[in-house]
C-alpha cells in the first residue's frame, strides 16, 4: 500500500443501473413475496415509460368516489374520517369505502375492476 500521501487507484464498489424495476405482484402472492426478488416482476424502463395517468374529472358533483384502505395501521380509521369529510362537505358525492382483502403489498384486480365499473374516481390510502 502506498504511504506518505501518494495517490492510489481503487475500483468503484457500486452496481450499474439496469433499467429494470420491481413493480406489482400477482394477486395470489403471499404478502411478504414483495420482498423476495425471486417473485418480483421485472418491469423495464421502456415499459414503465408508457404508463399514463387517467384524464381528470370536470367535477365530483354527483360522482362516485371509492375510498380504499390499503391495510397499513390506522388506514381503516383514517379513510373512515375521509368518508365523513365527504359526507359533511361534499354531500353530492357518493362514497364507497373498501378495504383491501389481501395485503398492502399485493395487487387486487377484482377491486380495481369494481371501481372501474361502478366508480368515477378513487382515493387510496394511507401509505406508511
Amino acid at each position: 500500500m502506498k504511504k506518505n500521501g501518494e495517490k492510489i487507484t481503487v475500483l468503484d464498489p457500486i452496481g450499474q443501473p439496469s433499467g429494470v424495476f420491481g413493480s406489482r405482484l400477482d394477486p395470489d402472492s403471499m404478502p411478504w413475496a414483495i420482498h423476495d426478488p425471486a417473485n418480483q416482476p421485472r418491469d423495464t424502463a421502456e415499459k414503465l415509460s408508457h404508463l399514463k395517468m387517467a384524464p381528470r374529472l370536470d367535477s365530483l358533483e354527483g360522482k362516485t368516489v371509492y375510498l380504499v384502505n390499503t391495510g397499513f395501521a390506522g388506514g381503516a380509521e383514517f379513510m373512515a374520517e375521509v368518508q365523513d369529510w365527504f359526507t359533511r362537505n361534499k354531500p353530492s358525492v357518493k362514497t364507497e369505502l373498501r378495504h383491501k382483502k389481501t395485503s398492502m403489498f399485493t395487487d387486487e384486480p377484482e377491486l380495481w375492476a369494481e371501481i372501474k365499473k361502478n366508480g368515477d374516481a378513487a382515493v387510496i390510502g394511507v401509505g406508511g
Partner: protein
Amino acid sequence: MENDYGVPTAPIVTSRFADYVQRDGRSHGMHLRWSFPPYPVGFVSKETLHGYVQGNDPISSAPLMEEVLFALTQPLTDAEKNPKIVKRPNRPRLLEPATEENLHRLFLENGWTDGLPIILPTEERVAEMLTGTDHDPQEVIGMMSVTTHEERLQYTVERVAVNAVMAGARPEHFPVILALGASGRPSLPSSTTSFASMMVVNGPIRNEIGMNSGLGALSPVNYANSVIGRAWTLMSINLGDMRPGATFTASTGTTINYNNMCFAENEENSAWEPFHVRKGFKRDESTVSLFRGWNVLTMGLGPATRMLEVMKSIGGPFGGAFTFICDPLVAKSLKNEGYADPMKLSEWLVNELNPRFKRPEMVNFIVAGGEMNPMWVTTDFSYFQSVSIDPWIPKAGIKKDAKPLRMPEPVLCKDGSCGISH
C-alpha cells in the same frame, strides 16, 4: 388504477414517506398527485385522525382534502401527460486516484461502508480476489435492490470482488460470496420493521475455508464467518443501492445487519440430515441457505413441548415462521424423543400451534454449537432459498493462501468437560 383502469386516483401517504414515494413515482415515470397527512396515522386517537383530515398537508401547507379534490379534478399538465424516466449514468470502473486517507474518507462519507474500517479495493487486491473463481470478471451475475420498487442495480463478478475485498475476505471465501451475489437477495431489505437476515453454509466448503459451526458459531470468533457475513451487507449497500432514508427505511434497524448471523451447520455432530440435504441437495454439495425475519431469542431449553410454548408466545406478524438454531445436544435429544426427521417435528409443532396453518416448511431447524449446553435459539426467520456454491469454485479447487488465516480454535479439554458446570 391510473394506467390500467383509467380511473383518476388520489393517493394518500403519510408525510414521513413523502420523499420516498415521490421518488418512487418519478423513477417509474409517473408524477402522481400525492397528499400527505401528518405521521403516524396508526395507533393514534380518532380525534387526531379527524384533525389530520380537516387540517393541512404538512409538506405543502395546503388543506389536505382540497389537495385530494384537486388531484381528481384539475386537468393534467403536459409534464403529467408525457412523463419521462430519468436514466442514471453508468458508473466508472475506477475511481479518481487519491491518497489512502482520502479514499477511506470518500468511502465512509459516501455511505459505501458499514461504518467499520474497510480494505481499500485496489486493482491488485481485486485481481487477487478474482483468483478465487474461474468466472470472467466482467460476467454479470445478478441484480439487487434493497427496495421493492426502484431500479435494480446489476453487477459483475468483479464488482462482487470489490465488495469482498472491502469486507476483508480472501479468495478462499469468494465462492460463497459470489453465491450470495447470484441470489440477488439483499441482506437488509428496506422495511420500516427492520428486517434481519441469516445465512447458513452447508457442505464441504465449510471446513475447507475454516468456517465455524461449533462453539460460538454465531459469535465474533471466526474469520470466515465474520468476513463472509460482512461482505453480504457491503454488497447490499453498494450493489443493492442502500441509502438510509432514501431507499432504506428500517426505523430502529438491527445490529444483526452487520454480519447477518453467518455461520456453518455442524453437520459432523448433528443427529439429523444436514439442512441442505433436507432441501434437496447432495451431501457433498456446498450451499448457502438464506433466511429473513426480525427477532432472535436465546436460551430455549427442554423438549419439543417447550418449543411449542415458545412458538405460542412469539407468533410472527404473518402467522408464524420459525427457525430454530439447535445445539447438537438438542438435535440428539429431539431424535430420542422420536423426531429422527426434523420435518416430523415441524409438522407436529405446526399442527399444535394452529391446525389451519398447515405449512410445516415454515418451521426449520439448523444445528450449530459446541455441545456446551442443550439449548436452542429461537428466531422468527423464514427460509427463502439455498444457493449452490459449487459453480463458483475454481476447477482446480478452492484458492487458498499458502498459510490460510485462521483464528484460534476453541479450547476444549480431552474429555470435553473443561470444568463447565451444568
